[in-house]
């Protein structure tokens, strides 16, 4: 798979491979057929695999999710597309009360190999309900695995791993990065739930996932000019979290900053800060800081740049961490 692929194309390739490899894999969602999805992630798949395997569903997210569960009970491996982050909520009950718990309730006798793909996050100038970061709701729910790739390679391989997983996986696609290009390697390199140090450094660790990894890499690049060496960790998996990788990094740098688009209050950063503080307390030079969205509805697009963490806000947090 040599050459540069956009994240969108890398995801498309992963779906194609998954459909080829397992006849039980089916795709479900709104407008995923002829249109190829509003982001064209399923482009061409219905044409090649037929409308039994790539299904345009009625416009009902609870229906999509609930019937995906039924298909899984019947031995299928559904991959569901939710059109935009803000439209997963009608399916929330089916996800948290049914999908997440079925395996445990059946004492392990049934499996729920369902993947829920959701384009998430802001930064594309959209109208409301098209820019939400709701990962904390899902990560808070036991029984769900939650992952988010930040680049084309991970987009491809993590999606294939997610589809192969026998547990339900919430697969959060950083929609503002769909058109970013990168190399997709010949093998996954990492298990689905491992974090990766994408830039080594010594002065502080920036922890991010999905769309914010790029922002943190740019921040680290800029900090380099001031002689600061920032490490950047791409979390990749939001549940479970690869704490050993994070602990190792924090013990070296002594400072940690978590960056996500989602509101800071009770966001993933809260869990990361609390647990890493418990585990690395004597190695820390500063409290673990958080940069993220505000405790407010996602704002209209003309002011979203204020809401979204950017390079300046990350570096501001770095300054504060280094001032301790």
């Amino acid at each position: 798979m040599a050459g540069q692929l956009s994240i969108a194309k890398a995801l498309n390739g992963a779906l194609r491979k998954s459909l080829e490899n397992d006849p039980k894999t089916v795709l479900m969602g709104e407008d995923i057929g002829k249109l190829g999805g509003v982001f064209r992630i399923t482009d061409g798949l219905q044409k090649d695999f037929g409308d039994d395997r790539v299904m345009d569903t009625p416009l009902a997210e609870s229906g999509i999710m609930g019937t995906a569960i039924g298909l899984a009970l019947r031995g299928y491996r559904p991959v569901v597309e939710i059109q935009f982050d803000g439209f997963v909520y009608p399916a929330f009950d089916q996800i948290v009360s049914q999908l997440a718990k079925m395996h445990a309730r059946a004492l392990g006798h049934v499996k729920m190999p369902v993947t829920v793909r959701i384009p998430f996050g802001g930064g594309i100038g959209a109208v409301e309900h098209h820019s939400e970061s709701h990962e904390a709701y899902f990560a808070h729910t036991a029984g769900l695995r939650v992952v988010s790739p930040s680049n084309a390679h991970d987009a491809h391989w993590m999606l294939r791993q997610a589809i192969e997983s026998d547990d339900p996986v919430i697969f959060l696609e950083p929609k503002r990065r769909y058109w970013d290009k990168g190399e997709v390697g010949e093998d996954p390199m990492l298990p689905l739930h491992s974090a990766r140090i994408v830039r080594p450094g010594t002065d502080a660790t920036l922890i991010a996932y999905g769309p914010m990894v790029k922002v943190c890499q740019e921040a680290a690049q800029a900090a380099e000019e001031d002689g600061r060496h920032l490490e950047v960790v791409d979390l990749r998996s939001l549940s479970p979290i690869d704490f050993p990788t994070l602990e190792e990094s924090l013990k070296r740098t002594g400072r940690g900053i978590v960056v996500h688009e989602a509101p800071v209050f009770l966001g993933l950063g809260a869990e990361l800060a609390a647990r890493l503080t418990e585990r690395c307390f004597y190695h820390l030079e500063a409290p673990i800081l958080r940069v993220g969205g505000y405790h407010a509805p996602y704002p209209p697009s003309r002011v979203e740049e204020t809401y979204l963490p950017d390079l300046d806000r990350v570096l501001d947090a770095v300054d504060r961490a280094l001032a301790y």
Partner: protein
Amino acid sequence: MTVKSTTRARKKAAPGVPDKASAGSAAPELVQLLTPEGERVEHPDYPLTVTPEELRALYRDLVLVRRFDAEATSLQRQGELGLWASLLGQEAAQVGSGRAMRPGDYAFPTYREHGVAWCRDVDPLNLLGMFRGVNNGGWDPNEKNFHLYTIVIGAQTLHATGYAMGITKDGTDDAVIAYFGDGASSQGDVNEAFTFASVYNSPVVFFCQNNQWAISEPTTVQTRIPLYRRASGFGFPGVRVDGNDVLACLAVTRWALDRARTGQGPVLVEAFTYRMGAHTTSDDPTRYRQSEETEAWKAKDPILRLKAHLEKEGLGDEAFFAEVEAESEKLGLRVREGVRSMPDPDPTLIFDHVYTEQHPLVDEERAEYEAYAASFEGEQH
């Protein structure tokens, strides 16, 4: 290798299930008062007397609404709006139903009801704030009894029903219209709204604009029977009306609202129409539908048929049409200038109205943001 599933053999509909195609076709039960050629016809159940004055007013509404919509589409192309959801083709459904309402009635729109907003006297510029990205709503719903646009498909039908339940409790003779689309008819919320409205006998009219498409999905993806027939399973009447016939939409909606306000419960009106344009300015319909289909619907244009009628009956002379045209130009200009001069919002609006009262976390984050923003003052970026 491409693996096709083995379930194909089961594809055929079971006997007794109407063929999929019938859901999308214009069945004979369509209520029509004005033919596509502009011929006035009568319907025994929906008599309508309209004065020439009223006919001309409806024509003016249709033209101005279309003009506003076209203006918004071009403002989007010029980068003044982030997105626009055009109502092109659906003017009659919206103006007919909108003009059927009384001042005390209340409308719950989707994101496409610009024509209904017009009838409710909502300033067209207010509708554009959300699409420009300066607010997430932008008007006081109670000022004109026109609720905020709702993007989450179907959610507003429950709000409409609850509002109607309140009317019943208050004992007034107001009524409510809930707008939604053919796609929305699949949502749980919409079906729950039908149930609540039915069991509480609520004064709400469910007005479904079946414009044949939910983005790329034809109506056949949502239903195997004509949508208006869904109502009977919930225990209230359903009517299919020619959605490109402003008179039929007016008569049927007026009948349904009057029925509702006199304690006879909900009605489902299916306005059979067509989305002439793309779903929104982000959409590319050439990927999923044939241009012949769109061409065929052009012949049923809601404005042309009323114009033909006015001309045929001698109810509108050249001066009248020229006057409407001039007014339409003026509206276009006002919309263009209004949008371009909309001030960019202050980012601190993020922290406004999150709660009804002061809130410590919101206050803290606002203060942090202001201090952070101030730290850049004087800096060159």
